[in-house]
């Protein structure tokens, strides 16, 4: 998988600055290569998620969230599910841990898989942007022949200071994923790994990503979604129901994979590819699952979260988790569903669907393919 991690050089300089820096605009239109075209056609071929009418599963807001939304006073936002200040604090706390590298296993894995998808595109990207870079888990897997210059953004200054060394010249910008401080048509490539799932207004964020991309630029993202952490969600729900007589959400709501194609389409991306990867991590018990999530800075920050977990409930949930999902060697699994998305900003040179009615073969004849037709014989 990590076919491209060679020796790394130290010329990747990283200067953290609070001032929002606007990337140098290059007006080079990338040359079209046949290989690139072929590559993209292959990718478009397996993007087959049917459009679903639902916009996003994140719209599930309770009455309580409604009140909070007014209190938070964020004008313009249509969705306000997550407490972003709390998320920033959690990330800061996680980054300041002495042994914070211990919790990077998931980000490292997903970062390398995102980098792998960058290599799938036969191109050199002069200027790229990593949104929610953490400790730059993608950049360390990229070569400078593929990405010539990289901008790193994250909401936590602490993790930007801990970014790993990379051979690509990088610049760090502390910015919120929801408000990208870049000019339109700036980047050739935007990548993001495991940060989009804490964004309130996902359609808006994707639209912004589309805006900062140059025409024919590509966005490659990964976020957790779908049935992620269903084991933890179920055991906590059952435990609270049995102990306290009711339950409240402890695991945040996730975007469903069926919604993702629609979201990308509405944000203006074309030639979409969406796929899921399921990563299962085995832990000694429920407490290790929760403390590792905390160490990753992935604690729940939904507005409607319950701030405490009763000690009886923890004990009950531990027993239920073990019983329902535990394996014979007494380890318990935690599932992470990683949704990968690739979208292109539209450009005239891109392959488009053929005109309606231009087909000259009927789908009814599909079964006859391979058989010599009678017409050819005569």
């Amino acid at each position, binding site marked *: 998988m990590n076919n491209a991690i060679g020796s790394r050089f130290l010329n990747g300089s990283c200067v953290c600055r609070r001032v929002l820096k606007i990337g140098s605009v290059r007006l080079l239109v990338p040359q079209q290569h046949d290989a690139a075209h072929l590559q993209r056609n292959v990718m478009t071929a397996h993007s087959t998620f049917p459009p679903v009418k639902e916009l996003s599963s994140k719209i599930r807001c309770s009455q309580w969230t409604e009140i909070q939304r007014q209190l938070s006073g964020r004008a313009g936002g249509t969705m306000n599910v997550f407490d972003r200040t709390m998320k920033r604090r959690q990330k800061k706390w996680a980054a300041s841990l002495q042994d914070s590298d211990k919790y990077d296993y998931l980000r490292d894995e997903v970062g390398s898989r995102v980098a792998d998808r960058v290599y799938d595109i036969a191109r050199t990207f002069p200027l790229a942007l990593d949104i929610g870079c953490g400790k730059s888990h993608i950049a360390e897997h990229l070569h400078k022949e593929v990405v010539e210059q990289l901008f790193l953004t994250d909401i936590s200054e602490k993790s930007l200071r801990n970014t790993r060394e990379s051979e690509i010249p990088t610049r760090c910008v502390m910015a919120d994923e929801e408000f990208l401080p870049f000019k339109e048509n700036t980047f050739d490539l935007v990548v993001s790994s495991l940060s989009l799932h804490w964004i309130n207004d996902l359609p808006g964020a994707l639209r912004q990503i589309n805006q900062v991309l140059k025409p024919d630029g590509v966005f490659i993202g990964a976020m957790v979604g779908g049935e992620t952490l269903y084991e933890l969600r179920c055991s906590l729900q059952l435990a609270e129901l049995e102990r306290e007589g009711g339950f409240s959400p402890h695991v945040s709501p996730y975007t469903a994979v069926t919604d993702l194609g629609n979201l990308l389409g509405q944000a203006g991306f074309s030639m979409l590819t969406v796929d899921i990867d399921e990563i299962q991590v085995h832990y000694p018990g429920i407490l290790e699952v929760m403390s590792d999530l905390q160490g990753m800075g992935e604690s729940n920050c939904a507005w409607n979260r319950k701030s405490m977990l009763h000690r009886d409930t923890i004990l009950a949930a531990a027993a239920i988790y073990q*019983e329902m999902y535990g394996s014979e060697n007494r380890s318990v699994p935690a599932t992470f569903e990683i949704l990968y998305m690739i979208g292109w900003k539209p450009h005239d040179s891109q392959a488009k669907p053929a005109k309606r009615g231009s087909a000259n073969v009927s789908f009814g004849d599909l079964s006859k393919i391979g058989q010599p037709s009678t017409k050819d014989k005569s």
Partner: protein
Amino acid sequence: MSGTNVWTRSRERMRRFPELFAQCSGEAAAYGKCVTATTTGIQELRKDLCGKEFDALKTCFVTAAKKGVK
């Protein structure tokens, strides 16, 4: 960030949880079975449905915790 305070103490207590929990695997399995049975059967899960099993688990856990302190 030095010395003991309520956070370090409670974190220390939580660190002992897996060890103590392992000592009560029998009671935990009994309670777990009682709760998970409701996810498949007709019986709906309500408050204190498995109260007896939970009390056994908790007694075992508390005893284990006391043993460790000495």
